[in-house]
């Protein structure tokens, strides 16, 4: 009678965005990149990159990452990650540019 949500809804990656400058990512597989301007997270089939200023990871637990700061952009990447994290860090860092 009622259509139930798909079983993978609560096991796939989920993003909660607050306009106060907080983003909570659930079911995250890991952190791929972190500096004050960018946080890249492994969400399984895709990658999520949060860009902004003064980004801090308020809480990092198993599967949960809480990011706070002045967020400007969220970018989703599909496919395998080929770039070396250290190279990508240099590329995304303002000092590196």
């Amino acid at each position, binding site marked *: 009678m009622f259509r139930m949500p798909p079983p993978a809804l609560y096991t796939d990656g989920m993003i909660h965005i607050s306009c106060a400058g907080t983003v909570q990512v659930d079911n995250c597989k890991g952190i791929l*990149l972190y500096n004050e301007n960018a946080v890249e997270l492994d969400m399984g089939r895709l990658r999520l990159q949060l860009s902004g200023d003064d980004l801090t*990871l308020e*809480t*990092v637990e198993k599967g949960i990452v809480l990011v706070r700061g002045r967020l400007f952009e969220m970018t989703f990447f599909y496919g395998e990650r080929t770039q070396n994290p*250290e190279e990508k860090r240099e590329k995304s860092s303002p000092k590196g540019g």
Partner: protein
Amino acid sequence: MLMERIAGWIFGKVQFSAEGGAYEKMLNHCTDMGLTLAGLQPTALGVKGWMPARDYKKIHRAAHHCHCRVRILRRRGLPFLLKRYRGRWGLLLGPALFLALCLYFFGTLWCVRYYDVPWQYQVEIDALLKENGILPGCRPTEQDLARARQTILMQSDTLADLSLNFIKGRLVVEVAPRTQKPDLEQYAPGSVVAAKGGIIDHLEVEHGFAVVGAGQRVEAGDLLITGVYIDEKTENVVITPAQGVVVARTETVYQSAQPLQFTAHIPTGEVIEYRTLIMGGRRIPLSLQPEEPVLFSQEVRSEPVSLFGFALPAVLETRSLYPEKETQIQLTEQQAAERARFLLDRALESESDTEEILQRSFDGQLTDGVFHATLTVERLENIAVSAF
């Protein structure tokens, strides 16, 4: 959030920094191990953040895999605070003991303070408060204070009002003395009569008119000074106050009967002391309580307890028992006469001033094993009393 902060402070937390290598991998390793990291901020060479102190050793394993260098920047929490005092627990014991005492003595009476109260009232009120159980170390309730106030006001002849305010361990006492009767009332119309019989020596009339003269004999109740008379010129009745001093030569007889054989309670010379500490509303006996003797007299003393000159809200009560024994005493006639004379002299001294005695005579005789003594005292005294 607040509970997390409290828990973090109680169990301790450290701020770590991870530099060099792939520190993102290290963070992933940490989360895989079940660690919780908080407040992560990027640094020039890596990242820094907070974690529970108990998990810090685990982070090294993850850092080794990722070629990171991990070190502690800051330590926070009770374990690190206590670590400073390891081996010097006495330094912590003092404040802890002080805190425990403050909590235990909460609501306890520490001292009694008199606010602008004359000294004679302080002594009187202090004794009455002790009688009512209000002393340092007790926990007085509102009902106790109200009851003590009522009792003190009923027992005191000189207090019009009394306030007992228990504020932060102090009992502040304020009094309002009773106002003396106005002088006008003392000179109310009336008469002065004789309190006892005697021969008048001299009179000093202040108000009214004397109706007796020096050398005249009067009996108890006779009119001495009157405040009512008829003006001869106007024939009106004039009413004035009557007051004065009428000194008369009086004779008083004191009698005493002293049996030659009687039973007396003689102290054995032994002293038994019980000490009780009254603290926090409780009575803590400091010595074992043996059986009380059958016959005894006792004395109870209370003294405040102080430690290095610092007064504590406690009182040490010492109860001294003086056991007595019954002894049959057999007196000779002369001893009985001396004892009877001693008792009569004591009665005389307690009753009036012995300096005005003109003459005294002691007489006695032994009848059926009892010495009957009589002391006749002749003296000068004021016999004037007001009669309204």
